């Protein structure tokens, strides 16, 4: 992980003091302006309806928050002001890193490259196992933000030779307008855009988003509505709908499933999900079974046993999914990509590092079998 130099960042924020710190894993705030009272943005939000008596109804996500004057949505990042709905986080970045693309994780998207990764504060769900709750489960004024308008994000990506900008760490759906505009700006300069999301979003905004980004990684947090209700405070159905929309759009899609002991790790649930993937989006969408570590509101469960992850992987492979990975277990053989035809290693990985690449023009170097993905 590379950090933006203090000098460079100061140039951008026009002399505002800055502290750069590397936090322990899971807490990714790396870029601060020391101005807790910094103003929030007031940019009119998209996807909402004005209602009588200065009320508004947000239509960005399936919550459909109905809000009176001065009220905020569940995300904490959008506010009704006098009957107009505003995003408070447009260009207000609370975290920025230069990460390996494998960290998102994207395993079939420009392997071995870096992504200029940004987030703003807030989230439209409340996962009890959130890894970044210090920035996702807060209101934007409760963290230190810096102004980073879309053109500056692009400038940074270019300066640090990142071929991709990643919208990540918190929930990019809640900074939709900023992500969209930045993506448009980045595309003009030949930079690609990837989104790391829980996809708790309505179909219309998701369709619109797929038109300006290149790849989307969706966290499928379980395959039961009960889990979504209890541990995510959201719904599963809209997430599945969003997955189908991304697939239909032709944009690159990968799925992550965080396996939490006793909560979403039953073989039945994994098989049900695998069957759904096979039926609805096909065998070539990579799925990553990631290891859970106790975090945020779930500290009473142990980290996922590797055997549980392997069992999940085997089930998905049995059901016919071609690219099934195990995440958060550095050194595991399932970090690597195998050719479904000759079974040889096409990309060998260790954690976020690429050790070997046996791909030629998107095909297996050994047998010529096409490996789906964005490779160049």
């Amino acid at each position, binding site marked *: 992980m590379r950090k933006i130099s203090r000098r460079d960042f100061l140039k951008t924020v026009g002399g505002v003091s800055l502290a750069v710190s590397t936090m322990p894993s899971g807490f990714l705030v790396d870029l601060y302006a020391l101005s807790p009272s910094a103003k929030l943005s007031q940019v009119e939000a998209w996807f909402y309806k004005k209602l009588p008596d200065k009320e508004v109804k947000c239509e960005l996500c399936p919550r459909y928050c109905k809000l009176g004057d001065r009220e905020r949505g569940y995300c*904490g990042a959008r506010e009704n002001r006098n009957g107009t709905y505003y995003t408070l986080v447009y260009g207000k970045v609370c975290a920025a890193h230069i990460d390996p693309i494998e960290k998102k994780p994207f395993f079939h998207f420009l392997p071995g490259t870096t992504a200029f990764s940004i987030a703003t504060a807030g989230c439209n769900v409340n996962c009890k196992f959130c890894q970044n709750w210090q920035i996702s489960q807060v209101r934007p004024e409760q963290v230190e933000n810096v102004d980073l308008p879309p053109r500056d994000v692009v400038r940074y990506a270019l300066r640090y030779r990142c071929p991709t900008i990643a919208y990540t760490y918190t929930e990019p759906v809640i900074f939709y307008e900023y992500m969209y505009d930045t993506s448009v700006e980045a595309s003009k300069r030949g930079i690609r855009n990837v989104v790391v999301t829980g996809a708790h979003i309505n179909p219309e905004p998701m369709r619109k988003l797929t038109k300006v980004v290149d790849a989307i990684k969706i966290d499928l947090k379980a395959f039961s509505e009960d889990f979504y209700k209890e541990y995510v405070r959201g719904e599963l159905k809209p997430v599945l709908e969003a997955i189908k929309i991304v697939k239909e759009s032709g944009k690159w899609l990968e799925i992550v499933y965080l396996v939490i002991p006793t909560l979403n790790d039953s073989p039945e649930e994994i098989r049900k999900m695998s069957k759904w993937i096979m039926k609805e989006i096909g065998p070539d969408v990579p799925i990553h079974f990631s290891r859970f570590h106790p975090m945020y509101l779930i500290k009473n469960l142990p980290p996922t046993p590797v055997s549980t992850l392997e069992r999940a992987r085997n089930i998905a492979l049995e059901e016919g999914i071609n690219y099934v990975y195990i995440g958060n277990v550095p050194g595991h053989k399932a970090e690597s990509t195998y050719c479904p035809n000759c079974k040889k290693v096409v990309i060998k990985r260790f954690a976020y590092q690429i050790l070997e690449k046996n791909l030629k023009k998107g095909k297996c170097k050994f047998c010529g079998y096409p490996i789906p993905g964005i490779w160049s």
Partner: protein
Amino acid sequence: MQKSKVILIKGKKLLSDNQLNRRIILLMLQKALSLLYECNDFRDALIQLFRPSDRVGIKINTIAGRRLSTNPLISLSLANLLTQIGIREENIVIWDRTNEELRRAGYRLNYGRRGIKIFGTDTRGINYEYELTIHKNIGSRLSKIQSKLVNKSISLAILKDHGIAGLTGVMKNYFGAIHNPNKYHDSNCNPYVAELYEIDLIKNKNKLSILDGIIVQYHRGPSYHAEWAEKCGCFILSTDPVAADFIGWQFIEKLRKKRGLPTLEEERRKPYYLFTAEKMGLGKASLDEIQLIEYEV
């Protein structure tokens, strides 16, 4: 079983030309306290709740701007009564979430050593606790004003209709004491309001609950809408927050009925959290178990 006592006190001449009469406010609060503890002098009532050495927080509600927030005259009058039992001015904090909201509601901030302190949680050096307080469905960072600065508190809330919860009153007022209230507006804010209040640092510190019913927003709350706001000129006061809110809810229903509006239950936003709170033993949510005393000064 002993009933919870709730005082509903009205002030005849509280409002004239839309101006609050400070003298009447003081009289109302004094009388309500006396009635609550059946004593002649309000100080005898207050001394049963507070000690002169206490650091007392008065959690007010300023989210809705100047027209529907706790008026400074009211919170300062209450603070004045506290000083009359020996609590030092500098040990009283009138507070809410942000300094901006306090200013907008007409407060002059005071962080100084002298006088009654008035500031928000977002004041530099205050903020929310870094560690989460986890209790049942609640996982929140508490305002350090509530957790550290004060050892006793008063919830001085505006009595309002609420589009999701049905009612916002003394218990829900503590949503303003955590960093993530937006996460607790599912399912009519139930059980969140009750579970938040049950946290020791809130429940054990809250000694007095007051609903400000000077102007009651009985529909389309919690923001201000003149069409559905009525000047009622009253306070509802109790040591039982559930009972105070329950009476506040009945009050709102009466106003709604008068205007031909459906009940909150018909609008699917009955304040269910009151019944949850009752089941949790936080107070009474039934007219049979509440002794309501109405009085006018």
